[in-house]
C-alpha cells in the first residue's frame, strides 16, 4: 500500500514539474498526450465500460474545440476557462442527441451512425462560414499565465498545467466510476443488456448517460486542444481522427482508465517513430504496429501491466488486480456469441 501511494505521489510530481524541465517540443507532445488521454478516457467510458462502439469521437472533439475557439477568438466574448466548460456542455448535448438514435443499435450498425456523425460534422463546420471561419479555420492565441505568475511561468508551460488539472480530475472520476451505482449499471449493461434490464436497470437512461458523459469528456478535451494547438479547422477532425482514438483505447486496454492514458501516449508517439523507421511508407509501420499489438496484447497495455503486477511474489496483494479483472474484462461482445474465456487464457487453436 505504501508503495502504491509513493508511486502516485512520484507520478504526480513528475507530471507537474515536467513542463519546466522538458524542451518545448516534448512539452508540447506531452500536452497533446494529456489532451488525448481525456478523449481516450471519455471514449473508453462509452466503448470499454458501456460496450457502445463509437467512430465519432473526432467529431465530438471538433464540437468542443470549435465552441471554445468561436467564443474565445472569433467573437471574443469569453475567457478560456468558461469557454472550455461551455464547449464540454455543448458537446455533451450533442452526445445526448446522438445517444437517442443509438439506443436501439449495436455493433456495426451503431458504428455506421457514428461514422456518419464523423463525416457530417466537418461538412457542417465547413458550410457555416460566418460562425466557424469555414475553410480557413480559427487561429486562437496562446493565453499567458495570469498576472504575477507570468514572471515565472511561460505561456506554454501554463497551458500544460491548465490541461493537466482537469485531465487529472476527470481521470480520477472515471477511475472511480465503477464504484458508483451508475458505473456498475453501465458495466452490467455491457455484459448483458437483457440481464441488466431484468434487474431493473434502465437501458435507455444509462445508454444516454454513457453517450452524454463520454461526449462531455471529449468536448472538454476539445477546449484543451484549442488551447494547446492554437488552431482549429474542419481538416483537423476527420474520420481518421476518430479511428485514431479508437486505436488508443484498444491498444491501451478497454475498460481501463490507466489503459486509456497508456494508449494515448503510444498512439501519439507512434507516427514519430514510424517516420524514423521508414521515410517512404510511415503509415505501413503504423499499421503494422497496430496489428502486432492486437496479436500479442489483446487486452492492451493495461492488460499487460496487470499481468505483470499479478505475477509478483505471494506476499504482495493480489486481490486488487484480480478484482479489477472481473470488471474490466475487455471487449464489446456481440451477445449472440458464447461468452469468451477470460482474455488471459491462451486463444484456442484448431
Amino acid at each position, binding site marked *: 500500500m505504501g508503495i502504491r501511494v509513493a508511486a502516485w505521489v512520484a507520478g504526480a510530481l513528475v507530471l507537474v514539474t515536467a513542463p519546466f524541465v522538458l524542451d518545448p517540443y516534448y512539452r508540447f507532445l506531452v500536452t497533446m498526450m494529456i489532451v488525448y488521454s481525456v478523449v481516450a478516457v471519455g471514449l473508453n467510458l462509452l466503448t470499454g465500460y458501456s460496450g457502445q462502439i463509437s467512430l465519432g469521437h473526432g467529431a465530438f472533439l471538433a464540437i468542443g474545440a470549435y465552441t471554445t475557439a468561436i467564443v474565445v477568438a472569433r467573437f471574443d466574448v469569453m475567457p478560456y476557462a468558461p469557454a472550455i466548460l461551455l464547449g464540454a456542455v455543448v458537446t455533451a448535448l450533442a452526445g445526448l442527441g446522438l445517444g437517442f438514435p443509438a439506443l436501439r443499435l449495436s455493433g456495426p450498425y451503431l458504428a455506421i451512425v457514428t461514422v456518419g456523425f464523423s463525416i457530417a460534422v466537418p461538412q457542417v463546420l465547413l458550410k457555416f462560414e460566418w460562425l466557424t471561419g469555414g475553410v480557413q479555420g480559427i487561429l486562437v492565441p496562446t493565453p499567458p499565465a495570469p498576472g504575477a505568475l507570468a514572471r515565472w511561468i511561460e505561456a506554454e508551460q501554463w497551458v500544460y498545467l491548465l490541461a493537466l488539472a482537469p485531465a487529472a480530475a476527470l481521470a480520477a472520476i472515471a477511475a472511480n466510476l465503477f464504484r458508483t451505482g451508475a458505473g456498475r449499471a453501465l458495466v452490467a449493461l455491457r455484459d448483458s443488456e437483457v440481464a441488466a434490464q431484468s434487474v431493473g436497470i434502465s437501458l435507455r437512461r444509462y445508454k444516454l448517460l454513457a453517450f452524454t458523459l463520454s461526449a462531455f469528456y471529449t468536448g472538454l478535451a476539445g477546449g484543451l486542444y484549442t488551447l494547446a*494547438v492554437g488552431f482549429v*479547422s474542419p481538416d483537423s477532425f476527420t474520420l481518421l481522427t476518430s479511428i485514431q482514438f479508437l486505436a488508443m483505447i484498444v491498444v491501451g486496454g478497454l475498460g481501463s482508465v490507466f489503459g486509456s492514458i497508456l494508449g494515448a501516449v503510444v498512439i501519439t508517439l507512434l507516427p514519430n517513430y514510424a517516420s524514423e523507421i521508414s521515410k517512404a511508407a510511415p503509415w505501413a509501420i503504423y499499421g503494422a504496429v497496430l496489428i502486432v499489438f492486437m496479436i500479442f496484447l489483446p487486452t492492451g497495455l493495461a492488460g499487460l501491466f496487470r499481468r505483470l503486477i499479478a505475477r509478483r511474489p505471494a506476499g504482495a496483494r493480489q486481490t486488487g488486480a484480480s478484482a479489477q479483472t472481473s470488471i474490466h474484462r475487455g471487449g464489446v461482445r456481440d451477445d449472440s456469441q458464447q461468452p469468451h474465456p477470460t482474455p488471459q487464457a491462451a486463444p484456442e487453436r484448431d
Partner: protein
Amino acid sequence: MTVNSHTRPRRPLRSAIDLAVLGILLAVGPAGAADPGLTSDTILLGSHQPLSGPAATYSLIPRASEAYFKMINEQGGVHGRRIVYKYEDDTYQPPRTVEVVRKLIERDQVFSIFNGLGTPTHTAVYKYILDRGVPDMYVATGATKWAFPPENGFKPYRGLFGFQPNYLTEGSIFGVFAIQRWSGKKVAVLYQNDDFGKDGAEAFRHAIEGKLTVAADDVYEVTAVTIDSQLLKAKNAGADVVFLFAIPKFVGMYLKKAHEIGWKPAFLVSAVSNSPQTWKLAGPDCDPPAGKVQCAPSDGVFSLQWLPSIDDKDNPKVVRHYEIVEKYGSGLKVDNITIYGQAAAELMVETLRRAGRDLTRDSMLKAAESIKGWSDGLISNVTMGPDDHAPVEDLKVVSIKNGKIDKDLTDWIQGSRPKK
C-alpha cells in the same frame, strides 16, 4: 517582427581586455553567433509534407526537390555548403503539422522552413514559425494569404514567402478570359470543397459578376466517387462553359463523362490539373498514340500555365529535369508535380546563392527580396521585393488538344493582388 540572427546576449564590457578579446573575435568572424541549422559545410532545411494518407499524391514534391538538392550538392553545394533537406510526414493533419514543425525547429534546429505544404496544415503553424524567427520560404500552396496576409493589411511578413501563383490570380484570369471569349453565355462552376477550390471559385465568380450568368455552382468532396450529379446539373442548366477548379482525377472524370454523354461545353481547368496525366485520365481518345479523335469537345479545353509541361521535350530545361529525376530521384517518376518540386528547389538554391558565403537568416531574406526577373530555372520572371513576397505571379492561358498543350492564347498575364 525582426528576424534575429544573433543569439548571444550582449554583456556590458568591463575592461580593455574584454574589448581586445572581442575585437579579435570579431576580426576572426562571427562563427559562434551563427544561426541554427548552419554549419561550415551544411544548411539544414525543414518541411512538413503529406507522405502518407489521402494527400500523399503530393509526396512527390519533396522527393523532387530532394533530387535537385542532391545534384547541387554533388556539384559542390551552395558556396561550399551541402543542403540537407529534412521533410517530415504530417499526413495532411494540422495537429500533426504542429508537432513536426515544432520538432524541426526546436529539436532539429533547422535554418529555415521550406515549401511547407497545404493550406490548413500550414495555417496551423505559420504564426509559430514567425514568432520563432525562423524563415518560412516558398510555402507550397496557392493560398493568397502567405504573400498578402489580410490581418497585416495585405503587407507581407518579413520572413514569410509564398511560391506559386495564387488561386485568386487563377480565378481572376480565367474570369477575364471567359468574359472576352464567351460574352453573353452561361457558365457552370465546379470546385473542390476546400481552401483550394473555394479560393479560386470565389475569384472567378467575382471576376465575371454582372458579365456572365452562373447557371450552376457546385462543389465536390475529395472523397467523392463520382461527380455525375453535379455534371448533370450543369448540363441541364444549359451551361456553355464549365469552370473546373479541381484536381486531375476529377477533371479527368468530368471530361470523360461529358464526352460519353455527348455534351460539349468549353472547359476552363485549374493550373493544378494542367498535366498530360489529366488528359490521359479524361479518356482513351486522349492518349496521344491512339488519339485519332480529339478528346476535347470542339470548343476546347483551356488551362493556365506557369511551369513548362513535361511533354515539352523541345525545352532543354524539361529534358534536364528528366535527367535529374532519373539520376538523383531514387525511383521517382516524372510528373508535373515533380517539375513543381524542382522549380521550388531551384528558387531556394538561387536564394541561398545570392545570400553569399556569409549566410545568415537575415541575408537570405534580403537575397530573396532582391530577385528580379529571374528566369534561369524552370519558372520565368521570378520577381520579389520588400513588399512583394510572391515569387511567381504570371500565368498564361493555353488551349489543350489531343492530350497536349496546343497554343498559348495569351501572353503572360500579371497576377492579381487582393485589395483592401
